[in-house]
């Protein structure tokens, strides 16, 4: 099945492992990722400057999706997914804004399509592909290794917009982890925010938030943490050392993308999944899985 894909800035600028693991794993479930004609920012940082411009950028993504002729768009980043979903909702409900956006798009010869279904990695795998298919495709089950799942904020909130999972009791990522033969545990800090949004204004506080959560996860003595958003991975993985310094703790938590775990369970080569790119000790998690 062909699905259009929008990567956003973070994944294309430095979170390469997410793109690599998605491009490696999805074809195993007959999903063909089709890139859009252009790539650009979804509008997330622009939102704080001018909400209309952000709506326009997101609408432009949907207009470019329209050019592919496909009705399904995968947006693997939580923040992009939220921004595009909110823009779609705004255009549906506010005829004044819709008119202005559509006119701007027309000037570039682009046409907005309101019927595009916006997917995230989690619901694409959980709802479209399905847990059964994933379970059946597993070659190397993850041997009951304990994982702390971090689903993130903008993918489950706010419910009224229609998000990917239940806001107070999200279970899809945990079920996806369980489908690989691992165990996703419950922990009080499960829904705590990674703090990435503060990177542009209060980077120390961002690190403090990430560090607090990592500290809590470290105390759980699990095999690692699984995320599915490049911003969250940036905070917990790439910035783990700095986060540790900020909260005064020595952090040593393997943090991986769910799709990297999925790839391991499917028997795909580690390098192809970008596991060498993780800054956190991912090799410890891999060892536990293979061991």
């Amino acid at each position, binding site marked *: 099945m062909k699905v259009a894909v929008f990567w956003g800035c973070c994944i294309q600028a430095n979170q390469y492992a997410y793109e690599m693991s998605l491009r490696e794993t999805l074809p195993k479930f007959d999903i063909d990722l089709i890139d859009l004609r252009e790539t650009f920012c979804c509008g997330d940082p622009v939102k704080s400057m001018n909400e209309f411009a952000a709506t326009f950028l997101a609408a432009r993504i949907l207009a470019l999706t329209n050019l592919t002729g496909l009705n399904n768009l995968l947006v693997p980043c939580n923040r992009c997914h939220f921004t595009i979903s909110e823009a779609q909702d705004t255009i549906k409900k506010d005829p004044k804004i819709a008119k202005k956006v559509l006119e701007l798009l027309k000037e570039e010869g682009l046409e907005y399509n309101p019927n595009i279904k916006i997917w995230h990695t989690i619901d694409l795998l959980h709802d479209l592909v399905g847990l059964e298919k994933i379970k059946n495709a597993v070659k190397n089950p993850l041997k009951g290794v304990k994982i702390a799942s971090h689903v993130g904020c903008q993918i489950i909130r706010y419910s009224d917009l229609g998000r990917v999972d*239940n806001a*107070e*009791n999200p279970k899809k990522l945990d079920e996806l982890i369980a489908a690989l033969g691992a165990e996703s545990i419950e922990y*009080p800090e499960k829904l705590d925010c990674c703090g990435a949004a503060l990177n542009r204004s209060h980077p120390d506080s961002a690190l403090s938030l990430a560090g607090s959560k990592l500290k809590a996860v470290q*105390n759980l003595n699990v095999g690692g943490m699984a995320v599915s958003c490049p911003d969250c991975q940036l905070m917990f993985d790439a910035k783990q050392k700095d986060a540790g310094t900020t909260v005064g703790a020595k952090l040593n938590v393997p943090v991986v993308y769910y799709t990297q775990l999925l790839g391991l369970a499917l028997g795909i080569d580690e390098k192809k999944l970008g596991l060498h790119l993780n800054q956190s000790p991912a090799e410890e998690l891999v060892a536990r899985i293979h061991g």
Partner: protein
Amino acid sequence: MARIGVYVCHCGLNIAGVVDVEKVAEYAKTLPNVATAKHYTYMCSEPGQKLVQNDIKTHKLDRIVIATCSPRMHEETFRKAVAEAGLNPYLTEIVNLREHVSWPHTHEPEKATEKAKALVRMGVARAQILEPLEKHKVTVEKKVLVVGGGIAGIQASLDLANAGFKVYLVEKSPSIGGRMAQLDKTFPTLDCSACILTPKMVDVAKNENITLHTNAEITSVNGFVGNYEVSILKKPRYIDEKKCVGCELCIKVCPVKVPDKFNENLTERRAVYIHSPHAVPKIATISPEYCLRLKLDKDVCGKCQAACEAKAVDFKQKPETVNIKVGGIIVAVGSEVFDATRMAELGYGRFKNVITNMEFERISDASGPTGGKIHNPKDGKTPKTIAFIQCVGSRDKRFHEYCCRVGCMITLKQTILAREKIHENIRIYVCYIDLRAFGKGYDEFYTRAREMDIDFIAGVPSEIHEKPDGSLYFDVYDKSTNKLVQINPDLVVLGTGLVPNRDLEKISTLLHASRSSDGFLLEAHPKLRPLESAVAGVFLAGACQGPKDIPDTVAQASGAAAKAIGLLSTGEIEIEPLKAVVDKDLCSGCRICESICPFVAIEMKTEKVKGEEKLRAEVIEAVCQGCGACSSACPTSAIKIQQYGNKQILTQVDAGLAEACAEGGK
């Protein structure tokens, strides 16, 4: 030739403040067949009515048009006045210049006056072809059905019985008592709930005028005000009610343990059980969904039957239907408690020591699961810190927008009980949004709580968490001190509000009683008619109409009983003649009206017409509500509502358009 009197009411400034009433009266004089046209400040007042009555005599009027407020306000008043002057009351036409003119068009007085003139013109045209009609009298049953055996149903039943009325009290569960039976103490007096309730329950059981059907539900309601036919389904208890003495021997030997709903699932009961500690009637009941013999339909167990010395156990008992005839119905089915699992962030259902007000009540009750000792459900210890969180599920657009009215007082009561029962100096916190202590003695009760060293935090938490060691904690921002505090309670009590009973859907369908947008039963008028539904003969009492405390419930129940007594006491009622009527010559027997009528008020009767047998529609006048659906559906215009036939409506339309100019396309 009709002689019409037109009266334009000022309604103080309500109408006259916008409409030029003098001009309208002057205009009315120019209309055909208008013998006199006047305007006056308050037509509904005594001098106003006298004005009409005198004019009927002096001007020999035979039609009256009163241009005033909504007919729902004073149509009856004017009809009575006209009747007193010797004219048929149904020759009075009300034109609404308030709700239809001065109120919606307050800012356009000129246009409003023109509209008023047009409406008067239409009223005058219609008045000419009104027909004189008579009310009919129908005998009524001096019997009342009370649905629901909580304090509302109990109070209403006793009031009715004491007034000499026969009462059928139908209660869904095996015992009457309802919510109040589950309470430990009641605010603000801290009366023991069972102590004030059980005497009334016993009175109900003993009263000769009350027939009590427990473990029963109503399944069908037919008929009309004064003459309802109701079917009651008595669900089998599998115990012979006449033989059981309530000795409880059967309970002791039953091997099946199930959650005890009366104790809010904090304890277990057996498959054969007595509903509550002070059950009335004190007769055992077997739950067929739990009992091994009944569930499996096999000849197993039967220990209860063996143990029963009165030989009261009867596994073969069948449901029984009882048909009754009553004049009125009082709905008193109560409400339910909000399901706090819906607010997942508070941890109810996940954390054992997060409980609801109702669960705390059972714990506090001496006849409850802990013998009245305040213990944490998780470890049975006495809590050292208790936190109450208000407005759980209420005042919340995600769940229920209304204020539950009782949450604050319940929590205040429970904090006082906790303080009195636990002698160590424990900390008790109440996290609130607004603290509502509105009733008699209520604010004094709030003062009492504060004086007992209970801490009030102005703010509610967002979520509750559990530490690895199983202890609870939550952050809450107190807006009085501007501090973010973390509370580590041993026990959290959620102020879960009252929500509409899930049976209301069934009840509202059975009785045609509508519900308001909050889900509770809708009263006929929120200010002036809070005790009755819009359906004649159906009255509302207690929390089924809206969440309320015991004093308000009892007051409403007695009021509903008084209303029923007022309706039925003379033994007969008058039926409004504005009902559907069939012109048999035009009726083709197509049955469209019968299928459309939402009140099942139309019957098809076979009649001999010119030697042939033909099907003709016939209206059951007393059931017909005059909605007009049949009239608009009838292909031959054979059926019409009295006073609202095609001629009468179309004449009005023609008069309305007579001076109109059409403007389109804006």
